[in-house]
């Protein structure tokens, strides 16, 4: 029973990381209808940035915060320079450009920081917390807490502030939003900024567990894709629930189905994605797409 409970908790911690990256995907998808294939590589660069700032003598927490802020700016810049000009391009062009960006960013990290792995310290102490009969590592609790707080802040931003309302308007009905005086491009800019910042958070949280290297986000982005697909690509709640579900399922399958084991866990993502798309293409929480002819 203890093993089961601790697998669930670990799954939730993994899931929280997937959820933040899935949320990043959802934010860019909701605002511009684009699945950002390069999101994982951007997150990887953000994690490297933290390492670089620390190498220059900055303590961990400020370095992480600075990296998140810079990622926000970089995400906004990416929207303004590359994504916005593509708003009327064909799907093939959009996908190709994002794949190009993915390849370029991946190599850029290898070029700047080489392909040897580096260690990024964890934000949390190495302690263990005792809850009755079983123990949880501080990192697990910390990850869940940090992502939880960030989600709460996002919720407050969207539900209680004017900017949040404007952003929701710009994402759901851009034409009407323009009519009531919302600057839609600026809102989309902020949306892509938030997406990059969330990605940075996931990168910084996952880096201590897998070590820094240019391919470190491979194993995360695939589950984030699965989470976003499962939850519905246009649903914020869906991304969070999807992320947590994927994290828990992945851990349970890896532990309890010996045939799959830890090496083949990745197949969970594949099955979830194809299963969702076949059975309920809009995801658990996604809105049904209606096309006006």
């Amino acid at each position: 029973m203890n093993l089961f409970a601790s697998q669930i908790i670990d799954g939730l911690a993994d899931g929280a990381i997937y959820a933040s990256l899935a949320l990043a995907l959802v934010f860019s998808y909701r605002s511009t209808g684009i699945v950002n294939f390069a999101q994982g590589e951007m997150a990887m660069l953000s994690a490297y940035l933290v390492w670089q700032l620390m190498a220059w003598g900055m303590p961990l927490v400020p370095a992480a915060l600075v990296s998140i802020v810079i990622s926000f700016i970089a995400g906004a810049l990416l929207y303004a320079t590359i994504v916005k000009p593509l708003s009327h391009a064909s799907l093939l062009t959009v996908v190709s450009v994002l794949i190009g960006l993915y390849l370029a960013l991946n190599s850029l990290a290898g070029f700047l920081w080489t392909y040897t792995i580096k260690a990024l310290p964890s934000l949390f102490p190495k302690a263990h917390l005792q809850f009755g009969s079983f123990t949880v590592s501080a990192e697990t609790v910390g990850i869940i807490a940090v992502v939880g707080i960030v989600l709460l802040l996002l919720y407050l931003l969207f539900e209680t502030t004017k900017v949040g309302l404007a952003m929701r308007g710009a994402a759901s009905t851009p034409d009407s939003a323009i009519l009531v005086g919302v600057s839609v491009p600026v809102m989309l800019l902020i949306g892509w900024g938030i997406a990059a910042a969330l990605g940075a958070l996931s990168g910084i949280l996952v880096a201590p567990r897998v070590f820094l290297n240019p391919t470190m986000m491979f194993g995360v982005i695939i589950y984030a894709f699965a989470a976003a697909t499962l939850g519905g690509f246009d649903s914020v709640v869906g991304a969070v629930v999807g992320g947590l579900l994927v994290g828990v399922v992945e851990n349970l399958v890896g532990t309890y189905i010996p045939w799959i084991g830890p090496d083949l866990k990745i197949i969970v993502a594949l099955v979830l994605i194809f299963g969702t798309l076949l059975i309920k293409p809009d995801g658990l929480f996604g809105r049904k797409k209606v096309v006006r002819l």
Partner: protein
Amino acid sequence: MSLVVKPKLPVAIRVAVTAVLAVIFLYVIPFVVPSYLVSQFATVLAFAIAIVGINLVTGFGGAITLGHAAFVALGAYTTAILVVRYGWNPYATIPVSAALSWIAGWCLGFPALRLQGLYLALGTLVLSITVPPILKRFDGFTGGVQGLNVGNPEAPAFLPLDDSQWIYFVCLVIAAALYVVARRILSGPLRRALIAARDNQLVGAVMGVDRATLTTATFAMSSLYAGVAGSLYAMIVGFVSPDTFNVMMSLSLFVGAVVGGITSLNGAIIGAMFIQFVPIWASDIDVSLGGLVFGGALIITLVVIPAGIGGLGERVFLWLCTRLGWVEGAGPVRAEAEAMGSAQNEPA
């Protein structure tokens, strides 16, 4: 909007062009080029086959696939397993690879009935990421991380060829045959049906084009191409291992297809040369340069020449023929929006 003009070259020029191509492919590459390059050119031909497959499904079928290395892996491992574990003749495995990949393409193309646009790209990308771990997991069969040693097929004793020249000619014959098949598929009504389904599903449906079946069939066909490419790849390299068929291979094939020209079958060979030689040259300078060049080339191609190098070449050729009066058929006929570049108004 392009004009449908069929180039009709004077016989002398046609003979000259054929002769030049024949000299390049039958003499210069196998006999003049240094021998270590010959097997690299054989790889180029194998990649070109896979890229023609991508041209079919992405360029004409309009379904973006980022996971063709999965089918290349299927073909390569079919050959490797049949040769190593069951002692088959390597050439006899090619039809088996083709059939298996075709079936796998039908099965995986079936979701393509439902997956549109981005989701298909996403699904195939994830498929491609999943392939190496699966190959490693079933190591009893696939040889796991160590891979399988297929060995290079030897040239028949009665021919004055070394092994790499022999495999080059094998690839050349198969690539030429598959190229002709693709040309046949893409001539006549099927081409128009594919383009109609790609550019405007609704109008296509009204005209009686069943997009779902057509897309699945195209996907299966393109998987077959990738499978054959995989078989040849296994014979050229003589060795298969899981990490060869990673997501990077899928993405390079995609890069090759776009750079060569996504709707240009002739461009496939240019795209294949690009993805075979550019990383080798680039890695002489810096390990990370290859990816940077790939990424940059992808973006620049789409911005500067959306039709790709091959597509651009074909247009220049057509324009020249028109200027010189080497065309058949009367007057300009408005028809198919040929390149993806002019299909930019499709609803997102």
